[in-house]
Structures are given as C-alpha cells and as structure tokens.
C-alpha cells in the first residue's frame, strides 16, 4: 500500500500545527464560534448531539496495522473505548473534547493519518472497492488511481469552496462494491480488447434528498488524463452549480437540469483547454504510485484445501470469505454486525485485535467497507481457522455478510444532530428478530439499509429493503422502501406505503420476507423476486 513521502508527511504535520493554533485561539477567546466552526469542520471536528465528534479519514478505506492500532488507542485515550466505522469508509469518535483534538490529530499524523476532507464543501475522501487488489473478479486495481485522486484533491485551492460537498468513488471490477454510480463522480477502471487500462466516468449520482444514478459522461478515458478530466468536471460544476439553494447544489442537480449531453459538451470543451495547460502528473509519478500497490509476496504454492470439519468455522468461511485472485488465499470480511449489536461499532480492544490479525496474517493491510465492516484482504486459507478462533473469542465472527443481519445503519438520532429518528435501535431489533443464521442464509443476499433522515448516510435508497426515519409531529416514524441496489444493477428503492412505528416496521419486514419465500424461484434473491413480481404482493401482505 501507499507509503507517505516527505511531502505527504509535511502536509499533515503542518495541518496539526495550524489546527493546534486555531484551537488555542478559540479557547483564549480570540476566535468566536462563528469564526472557529468552519476551521474545526475542515479538520473533521463536528459538534453533535452529545459532544464533539471527530471523523477520521481512511482514504479509499485502506490502512495498515499500525494505523488501525492507533485508531484503537485513540478510542481508549481520548474517547470512551470505541469507534464507529462509517458508510464513507471512515471512523468516527463520538465523545471528543475540544482541547484534546490537536493531540489526536498529532497522534494520527504520527502514523500518516488525518481528518482532512471529512467535512465541508470540498472534494471528500475518495472511496473505493474494499476488495481492490485482491478480488478474483477484478479487472484492474483502482487503488493507484484513488491515491492519485487523493494527491490531486487534497487542498485543491480551486475546489475548496464548491457549491456542496463532492464525493468520488472508484472501482476496478464489474462487480460494484462501492455504490459507484451513486456518487458525484463514479469511476470504473476497465480494459479494452488490447488489454489497455482506461477509465469510464460517471457523473451526477447521489443519494440524499434527491437520489439519482450517475449517467456515463465518458466511456473511455486514458488514465494519464484522469486529473485533467476531473478538473474539467469540477470546473463546470463550480461554475454553474447552484449556490442559492443547498438542496439543489449537488452536481446531480446540475447534470439533471442541463442534461447529460450538455454537461458532457461543456466538460469536453473545458477538458480540451485544460489539456493545453499540462496539468497531468508525469507518467513516472503514476508508475511510482502503482509500484507501491504491487502485490505482496504471495505464496503461490499455498494450499487451497483446508479442514472444514468444524461446522461453525465452515459456515463462517462460506459466508464471510471471498475468492482471492491468488489460489490458496481468501479475502476475509469481519462483520461488525453481531446479533443485536450496533452496526459499525468496535471497541478499542476489537480494533487492536483486527490490527494484530492484519499484521500477522494479511500482509499488514486492512480495509474499511462502506457496509461498515472490516476486511483482511490477503489471508492464506490455511490461516483462516486461527483467525476465526481469535475473532470468535472477541465477538467478531458473526457469519452474516450480505445477509439480512448485515445491516447498514447511520448513527441516527442517538448521536447525530441532523437525524429525525433513531436508526440503531431499529437495526438491533431487526437483527434480533432474524438472529437465526440458517434462516438468514435461507433468505440469501438481502441488503437492508437504514437512514435516520433524508440525508441518507445509511444508504436507504440503495437497500434491497431500505428504511427512512422521519419525524411525524415529534414522533419517530419509519418509511419502508423496496427495490434499491448499489451494485452493478444499481437501482433506487421506492416507498411502498404509509410509514410504521419502530415495532411495526420489524413486523412489516418479516411479512415481506414471507412473501419472498413463497414467491421466489430457484436462485432468485429478494431483490430479483421483488423486481419480477412488483410491489403489490408485498403491499397486500404488509398492509393487508
């Protein structure tokens, strides 16, 4: 994985010094809150319902064991012993003291981490396929491009005050594991018949108040022109994106209002101009970055066959271990969704354990997934049993990946000042209702996503089953959506009818799964059955 050079380190160190001074001036009274607020947000420090919350960046969801260990240590030293992994592949701490924030950033900087690009109307941290560089189905590794995007976008002066925040996702496989088409810009690394790498660029997707799937704006782009092309995309947005209405300020609204064709025409015009300026990094720089993502020293003779006689272990392997591009290896997903637990939360000890496992068994590498789980990307199959045992002892071996228990949930009204309703208690109740793993496996892939407000941090639009919490005259109410997907078959869910109370929606989901079981054909997922038979049978069963 990428290692900071002296420039990277100097930038984050300088940022720590700068923010330390800003905090000192706030505490002395030299800065009022109105002056300080945008400065703290630029460093990921929000004021939430109960305390300050620090959002730490994990660029493209990749980190090493030392960095992961530091995240655990920060949870102990400055917070209340846990952290929350987010749908943006980051981690948040919920109980931060203002006076501690500079010291936390210094600790993060000591391991090449920071909280930059986690807030504000800038280009946010790029997200990526969490199986990048490991998946058997991968066409090309997107991480070098993600890293180049990081270097291009960090502190980019022209794009520091965009009309709204701007999110980029990148994948290198036809299997979309990053909700790529639901981002402001989605990039897919593809290859042509000659085996050359190119980039397919989608622009104008997003969730939130107005969900949209990003259309293709460029079907093929030379990777060496990526920076210039994105510069053009952003420049057109920065020029014409609305600043008078925050609900219409995202690029998806611009692309929708002027049309993809017109947006493309303007981008191409700008792109032609930018190409004359020579902004692209030299090919040697991309080569330098690519070299840092070279495969680790895989044992090409590692055996594939392992002892699966322990049924609990076999279940976990079947559900939570994916095919690796190298025979004899697997990709382990550690579920942060224990039955009845809080999606995405991990204790300091659990975080440090995962760091140790990465160091000992996965070439020192971990990934944070947008589904709020943790990945060990390169694990010898012969090491799986030892890993599983240690995870099981720590309550981290729930075999529910991509099942109904693997729920995405935003922090909701338990923590978030923007939320209208609680998300986590609902996730806990659904998880408990469907606690039987065999029942979950019988239901098959079923992605359930919960947001506590229209901002959709819980990706409810993209859930096979989505839940949106709303405030109905001061009472929490939950709307139910069916038919969303964030994968290669991206679709947006639709609200199926009147909303429910917290208990009512758990019953409604149970009835929906009964309809699915009764109506499914061989091999159909819940989503497939819903798409085939439509809403009516589900509404009949739920609203009767």
């Amino acid at each position, binding site marked *: 994985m990428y290692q900071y050079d002296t420039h990277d380190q100097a930038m984050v160190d300088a940022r720590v010094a700068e923010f330390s001074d800003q905090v000192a001036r706030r505490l002395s009274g030299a800065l009022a809150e109105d002056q300080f607020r945008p400065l703290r947000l630029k460093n990921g420090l929000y004021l939430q319902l109960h305390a300050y919350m620090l959002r730490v960046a994990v660029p493209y969801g990749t980190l090493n064991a030392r960095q992961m260990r530091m995240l655990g240590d920060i949870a102990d030293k400055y917070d209340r012993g846990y952290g929350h992994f987010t749908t943006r592949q980051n981690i948040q701490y919920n109980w931060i003291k203002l006076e501690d924030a500079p010291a936390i950033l210094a600790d993060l900087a000591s391991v090449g981490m920071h909280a930059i690009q986690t807030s504000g109307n800038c280009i946010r941290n790029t997200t990526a396929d969490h199986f990048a560089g490991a998946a058997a189905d991968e066409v090309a590794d997107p991480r070098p491009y993600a890293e180049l995007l990081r270097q291009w976008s960090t502190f980019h002066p022209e794009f520091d005050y965009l009309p709204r925040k701007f999110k980029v996702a990148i994948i290198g496989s036809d299997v979309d594991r990053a909700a790529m088409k639901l981002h402001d810009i989605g990039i897919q690394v593809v290859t042509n018949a000659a085996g050359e790498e190119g980039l397919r660029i989608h622009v104008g997707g997003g969730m939130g108040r107005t969900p949209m799937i990003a259309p293709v704006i460029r079907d093929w782009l030379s990777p060496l022109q990526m920076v210039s092309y994105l510069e053009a995309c952003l420049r057109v947005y920065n020029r014409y994106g609305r600043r008078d209405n925050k609900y219409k300020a995202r690029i998806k609204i611009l692309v929708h209002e002027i049309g993809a064709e017109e947006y493309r025409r303007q981008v191409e015009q700008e792109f032609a101009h930018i190409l004359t300026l020579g902004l692209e990094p030299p090919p040697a720089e991309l080569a330098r970055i690519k070299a840092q993502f070279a495969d680790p020293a895989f044992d090409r003779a590692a055996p594939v066959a392992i002892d699966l006689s322990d049924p609990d272990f076999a279940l976990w392997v079947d559900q939570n271990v994916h095919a690796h591009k190298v025979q004899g290896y697997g990709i382990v997903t550690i579920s942060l969704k224990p039955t009845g637990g809080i999606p995405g939360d991990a204790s300091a000890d659990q975080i440090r354990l995962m760091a140790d496992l990465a160091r000992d068994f996965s070439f020192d590498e971990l990934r944070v997934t947008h589904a709020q789980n943790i990945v060990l990307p390169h694990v010898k199959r012969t090491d799986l049993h030892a890993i599983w045992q240690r995870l099981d002892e720590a309550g981290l071996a729930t075999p529910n990946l991509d099942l109904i228990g693997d729920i995405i949930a935003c922090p909701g*009204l338990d923590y978030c000042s923007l939320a209208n309703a609680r998300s986590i208690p609902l996730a806990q109740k659904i998880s408990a209702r469907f606690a039987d793993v065999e029942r979950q496996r019988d239901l098959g892939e079923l992605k359930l996503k919960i947001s506590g407000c229209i901002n959709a941090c819980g990706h409810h639009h993209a859930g096979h089953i989505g839940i949106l919490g709303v405030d109905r005259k001061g009472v929490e109410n939950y709307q139910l959506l069916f038919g969303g997907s964030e994968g290669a078959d991206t679709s947006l869910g639709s609200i199926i009818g009147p909303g429910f109370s917290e208990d009512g929606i758990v019953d409604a989901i149970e009835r929906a799964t009964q309809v699915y079981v009764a109506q499914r054909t061989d091999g159909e997922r819940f989503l497939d059955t819903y798409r085939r038979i439509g809403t009516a049978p589900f509404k009949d069963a739920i609203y009767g």
Partner: protein
Amino acid sequence: MSADRFKILTGNDLLTGDVTWWTGSGWSTAVNDAAPLTDDGAAIITAEERAQRVVSAYVIDATRDAQGIRPAHIKDRVRALGPTVRLDLSHRPHDPAATAWIA
C-alpha cells in the same frame, strides 16, 4: 401550546462538548437542574457564549412530569439522556425505563 409548557435553555460546553442546561446562574449536565426561563433567553445566550462557557445554545420548550423536566422534542430528550443504545454512557445508566422516557 399547552399551558404547562415553559422554556428552558440548553447548549454544549465549549471545552468538553457536553450537553448543558441553564440553571439560572450557571450550567449543569442534568436536565432536572434546568430552570424555567424568566429572562430573555437570547440575552443569556449572547452573554454566555461571549464568556466562552457554552456553544450552540438555544431555547426549547419543556414540561414537568413525575421524573422531572421533560424536553418537548425527542431530539432534546435524547440530548438530555444520552444515546439510547448505550445506556451505560447515558445519564441514567441503571434505569431500564430510561429509553421509554425518550419516546
């Protein structure tokens, strides 16, 4: 508005970020210490924010029940209690009825 409603003042402690409630002479982390506002809330906010004691202060409606002061809106009740999914970190860690108080 119901006749038994009154106004109280809440915010966050500048240093710790803790939720705080205006007691009439200072700030407390316990909602039951909140004092019904008799003065101009905006003036208190201005003075207290200027004195660096509180941030993001605002006036809310509340009522009084058998357990004490109850903020009118659920968001403020969650602020008063703490996260309902981590009662161990809340202001009522040993009260199984605490979550019901939110709804």
